């Protein structure tokens, strides 16, 4: 069974610091270059060359900005750590179904738990070095 791990304050702080470390210099860089771009486009023929990749980028980013807004609106970031638990629980459940199918004809084995059933059925397929075999 997968234990629920509480999100620690240090984790949140680290995440915030990393987000700021990524966002602040990038926003500064993009902001200043965008101002330069506007100036270049208005005053120089080179600006015409620049417009194609910039428009590509802006269109792609606009799409993702809309997606980001949609995700926030639909609560995709509420209980933000929950999906990682759900994914493992589902995977465990699928493995159990597979294990019970594989072990269906092994009547002589006294299976006592789903976890043992899964481990016993799937273990032969796991690649482990000789040192790792218990």
């Amino acid at each position: 069974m997968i234990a629920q791990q509480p999100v620690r304050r240090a984790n949140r702080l680290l995440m915030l610091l990393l987000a700021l470390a990524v966002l602040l210099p990038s926003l500064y860089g993009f902001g200043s270059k965008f101002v330069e771009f506007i100036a270049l486009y208005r005053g120089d023929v080179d600006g015409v060359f620049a417009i194609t990749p910039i428009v590509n980028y802006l269109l792609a980013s606009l799409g993702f900005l809309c997606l980001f807004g949609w995700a926030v609106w639909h609560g995709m970031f509420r209980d933000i750590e929950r999906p990682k638990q759900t994914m493992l629980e589902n995977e465990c459940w699928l493995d159990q179904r597979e294990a019970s199918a594989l072990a269906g004809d092994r009547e002589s084995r006294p299976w006592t738990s789903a976890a043992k059933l899964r481990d016993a059925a799937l273990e032969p397929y796991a690649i482990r070095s000789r040192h790792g075999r218990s």
Partner: protein
Amino acid sequence: MIDTQRATTPVADDLLVDRRLVASYFVAALVFMGISLLAGMLMALQLVHWNPLRGIELLSPGRWRMIHTNAIAYGFLANAFLGALHWAVPRLTLRPVLSQSLSWFIFAAWQFVVLATALGIVVGPTLQANVPALQNLRWSLGAQGLEWGETPTWIDPLALAGLLLVAVNFMAPIMQATGPLYVTLWYFLAAFVWTFLTYAMGNFLPQYALAGTSAGAVGGLFIHDLVGLFVTPLGWGLMYYFVPILLRKPMWSHALSLVGFWGLAFFYPLNGIHHFLYTPIPMFLQHGAIISTVAVEMVVLTVIINFFATLRGSGREIVTNLPIRWFYTGMVYYALTCLQCAMQTTLTFQALIHFTDWVVGHAHLVMFGVFSMWLMGIMTYLFPRLWHTPWYSPALCEWHYWLSAGGMLVMATDLILGGVFQGFYWASLAPWEVSVDGSQPFWIVRVFAGLAILGGQICFFYNLYMTWRESRALGARPLEAAAPLGTAAN
């Protein structure tokens, strides 16, 4: 909510995941991997003046080089990704893909696209020059003049339609999933949209709408976006799925993984022009590409921290669990290649290494050292599960890993170092031949590193064949007898 999803999941496992399709994609991928490696060896031999196919026009090095790159990108990576997606998406969403018939159609269509591309590259120009009926065609039957996009122009619309079908087939179960999405599904969703847009942008805009510098700028975006918006999101998405299930514990921080995803979404698309520093593209755009590249490096750092923090406390898995070792070796190579990227996008460093073998080493580190290694790890884990048969020889699996990882390390180090030497030769204004002669030791080492990698794959192919034979002998049993809900519980 989860129970509702599980209740609507098909009971038989084979109805959720089409194991035969996954295995078929993987086998097709490995066939193209073999072709690509052979083509790479031929190129390596050409550089040390030992081309065994000298004088054969159809097999000239210029054509083989394109086979080498296209077979690995569209033959190996695309096929292997599609196979892994057919395993991961239904299991993550608890719903099958939109249509398994459509999946098989896409499988067949994609092999046609890749084979037709190879055929176009090898015989297209010769055919068009010698057959009068083909000489008046408006479009070339040979390679399109776009790096990584050499797919002949007549195939482009077919490939794009194929990518659209892939997106529809996989997005159907993802869009039906309820509740907050796991990070893998975010990456996959984005990859389906990005790949379609990137392919359209790179293959159509320079061909039909743009010319000169603008076409060059879009070509640069295409090359890099192909790696960053097709291969990277699929690769990381799969890592976020396979690493936790193999370690049997969740990612260290799902929130941090989402920072990585959204960071990639917003910072990556402008990176491509860093391939064209010191070109006539306006310096304003080149500077923008450098800044966004540095931003992406920071995003990469969050991803690497997250994965290594997840490994904390389970470090022994690196030794005992071979798929995990493949994955984390790829991640170390990924960190190295991104560090390299941050260095080479500075104008000072670019002045030294532009056009040298440094770039070739970087490309090999990315395509083989990172993404191919991840896919090899996935195959090492999945083939026995797909065929319900253990590996014929775990020792050969180990040889596969060590020859591949070791060969890659030697090749990348050799080419990167050789690139620096070449840069200094050129900067000294010595005659071109001097730099070619000086490169010979590096190119000879590259041949042996390539042989090691090829040897590793031969071990894998043989092991796979013998495992398949054993699975046939054992008689792979279908899983229709899967227990109904709850019966497997304690």
